[in-house]
């Protein structure tokens, strides 16, 4: 009872303070939460209120962390960069924070993880306790440690594949836009052919032919995703090559490489970076999907996709363990998209809408 009372008192005090100091959005947020809580409290009782309070607390915590992280970044970076960072919304700061955490986890995995990547330490499906933070998997390995190592494998592989896809796609796209003619046509039709095969089936086919070595996965995924990059790059560059400054550079006698590097690329980085973030998510999901199907990263290497599959049986016992690696994937995807959204907003005409 005292919780319910305290909860309402805190909310109403907060809204009153916000209204008094004239913070309109804060007031609206708090007070609508209060009103919603009245209804939910009547229907769901104290349990529902606790749930709302926890959720709101988590959100507030995330916001506070993002805020601090942004201020931290602003404080430690150079003035030119920190001026940009100041304009970042909290969502972008949250995204950056999550990416930062993942990066730390991936880089320092052997030191952070309490147990080895494929070390069997206890019996299968051991429950959670203070030693096994998230319990054990089907072979008795520590899930927490495997998630930490998984950050390194899954994210690292996806990053590598996306970068390669971008190198191939962007280069081909820029060349096609500058050269035009038969080269453009050849590239375009090649891209069409690759895109016409469903990506997962294509990947499965190729992996069954060439085996599942890591470098094979990277190259195949890169080839599958490069046509999307190619199309975007070519479209963006196509709008730039018709500009007068390109004509001026051509008339000056500049070569294609100079045109691409100095004149076109600086003007197309914004959409390309945004696309990089999106593609990264897709590539990540594709690799996770391949692992889930057993053709991606091979055991005993820890990988989030295969972890979901290996522990899938637990779902029928009402245990959420398989959802934890899935949640890690989802969180990273959301985080990357938050950052990309901000970059798009910052560097395109979107802000004028």
């Amino acid at each position, binding site marked *: 009872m005292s919780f319910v009372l305290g909860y309402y008192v805190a909310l109403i005090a907060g809204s009153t303070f916000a209204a008094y100091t004239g913070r309109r959005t804060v007031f609206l947020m708090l007070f609508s939460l209060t009103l919603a809580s009245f209804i939910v409290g009547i229907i769901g009782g104290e349990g529902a209120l606790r749930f709302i309070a926890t959720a709101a607390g988590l959100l507030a915590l995330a916001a506070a962390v993002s805020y601090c992280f942004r201020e931290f970044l602003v404080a430690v970076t150079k003035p030119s960069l920190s001026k940009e960072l100041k304009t970042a919304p909290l969502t972008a700061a949250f995204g950056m924070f999550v990416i930062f955490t993942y990066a730390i986890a991936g880089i320092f995995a052997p030191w952070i993880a309490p147990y080895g990547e494929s070390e069997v330490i206890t019996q299968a499906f051991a429950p959670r306790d203070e030693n096994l933070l998230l319990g054990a998997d089907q072979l008795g390995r520590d899930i927490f440690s495997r998630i930490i190592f998984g950050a390194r494998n899954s994210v690292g592989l996806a990053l590598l594949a996306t970068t390669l896809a971008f190198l191939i796609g962007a280069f081909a796209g820029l060349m096609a836009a500058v050269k035009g003619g038969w080269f453009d046509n050849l590239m375009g039709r090649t891209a069409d052919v690759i895109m016409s095969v469903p990506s997962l089936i294509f990947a499965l086919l190729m992996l069954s032919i060439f085996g599942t070595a890591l470098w094979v996965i990277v190259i195949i995924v890169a080839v599958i995703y490069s046509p999307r990059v190619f199309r975007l790059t070519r479209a963006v560059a196509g709008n730039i090559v018709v*500009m*007068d400054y390109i*004509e001026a550079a*051509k*008339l*000056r*006698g500049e070569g294609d490489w100079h045109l691409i590097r100095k004149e076109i690329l*600086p*003007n197309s980085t914004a959409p390309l970076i945004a696309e990089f973030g999106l593609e990264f998510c897709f590539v990540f999901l594709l690799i996770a999907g391949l692992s889930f199907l057993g053709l991606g990263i091979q055991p005993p290497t820890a990988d989030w996709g295969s972890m979901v599959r290996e522990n899938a049986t637990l779902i029928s016992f009402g245990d959420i363990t398989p959802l934890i690696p899935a949640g890690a994937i989802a969180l990273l995807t959301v985080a990357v998209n938050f950052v990309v959204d901000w970059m798009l907003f910052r560097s395109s005409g979107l802000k*004028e809408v």
Partner: protein
Amino acid sequence: MSKFKEKDVLLKIRDLRIDGFSDETWVPIIKGVDLTLHRGEVMGLIGESGAGKSTIGAAAMGYARDGTRISSGSIEFDGMELSTATEGERRALRGSRIAYVAQSAAASFNPAHKLIDQHTEAPVHYRIKKRMESQEDAMTLYERLRLPNPSEIGFRYPHQVSGGQLQRAMTAMAMSCRPDLIIFDEPTTALDVTTQIEVLAAIRDIVDQFQTAAIYITHDLAVVAQMADTIKVLLKGEEVEEQTTEKMLDDPQEDYTKSLWAVRSFQRPQKKRPSDGSPPLISVKNIDAAYTGGVKVLDDVSFDIYPGMTVAVVGESGSGKSTTARVITGLLPPSAGEIQFKGQTLPKFYKDRNRDQLRQAQMIYQMADTALNPKVKICDIIGRPAEFYSGLTGPALKQRVDELLDLIELEPAKYYNRYPPELSGGQKQRIGIARALAAEPEFIICDEVTSALDQLVAEGILKLLDRLQQDLGLAYMFITHDLATVRSIADEVVVMQNGKVVEQGPKDEMFQPPHHPYTDLLLSSVPEMDPNWLTTLLEERGVDNIGEAATS
């Protein structure tokens, strides 16, 4: 002002202040402007870009564009206060009682619908007329606006009619509900002089016939002199002065107004061809050219450009002026004929030319916005040609860039590390000139370099080009449709029509009769400051014989 009685006030704006949002803060862009417009009165708003003309025009409809807000002041339209009216009330006025004619009709019409369907939209929406009634009315209006085939033209799509016709169709659309007030926002700026006349005549007639009040926004004084009863001059969001047209033209009070009036007076002495028989710098010989698979756009074009002289190439859009420039630079290889540089034939395609041949023909573009890479620093834009052609690096390159910046009258220390979007239109154009100069050419093609600029700024650019010509002995090929520019800077004139040279010769001869009929049409179509110029001209040509009719 005597023409309009005090009680017939239609629009009364008092102490209007509008803020614009930039760099995260609101800055005032209109700083307290008063405006009184009577029924049937046409008021011309003139000023440079950024003076707030269009913003006031929009405010007269109670409308603030995105990123602007009306911060204070009152806008009273026919007794109704617009600044406090609800959005719904204001919207009910627009289209029915206040109409708007935009600068670019091509961009303002929806390309997916027929003209007449767009015309009837407002009357049907406001239930003023039934669709059929409104269509008939549209045809009447088209006829009054002297559009060809008035009963049929409305059933075309916007891309199927010419620019001048589209602009008139838009005026007709604005009249569709017989509004009390029409706002014309630079309706003829994008048109050729010969087309401009038709539109001006049409607008003036229709405004007279229906006793509509109008606000006519433009930066062209000669145009506003034909259209307006009163003229209001604006500068940076403030009113400079307001007078009746005659008084304003004869006796401007303020210094700023006088400077606007004086713009067209710049003229430099005409040079003659060298008499010692030396070869021309650039010689265009019997050029035919066509774009891939298309019809011939250039037909037997020949002219010579001698060192240190300015040859103006004039003509309407589509006459082949810019194509000629593309042929000279080698972007469009000609199908017949040749380009000679100092007596030597240049390869037809630019990729076959060597660096020394490429550096001789530099271009300055019309739109400085698209001619300068927005992501490259000024020092690199100017430095690159110097580095590329002369192999300068390090301190020598920096010194050369500083020299060039000095040459175009921009302070090197201040602009060295800036990016093009941080500069004003005139400054960008100067950077474009510096880039051309960096190649140390003897010949520069200026493609409509001043037509996107305000008159005062344009005059500055012309003076700069003239000074550079004297200092560096440059030859210019000056592509323009503005004969006032030709008068001020050209030595020789080449008149083009439909891809052919119709007349060419020294400037003084070209401006003296007898002319080729087309030259005559071009010359007489240039608006003059005399407020009766349009009336006189129309009488001379006969009502049915203006513009298009005369060209065909």
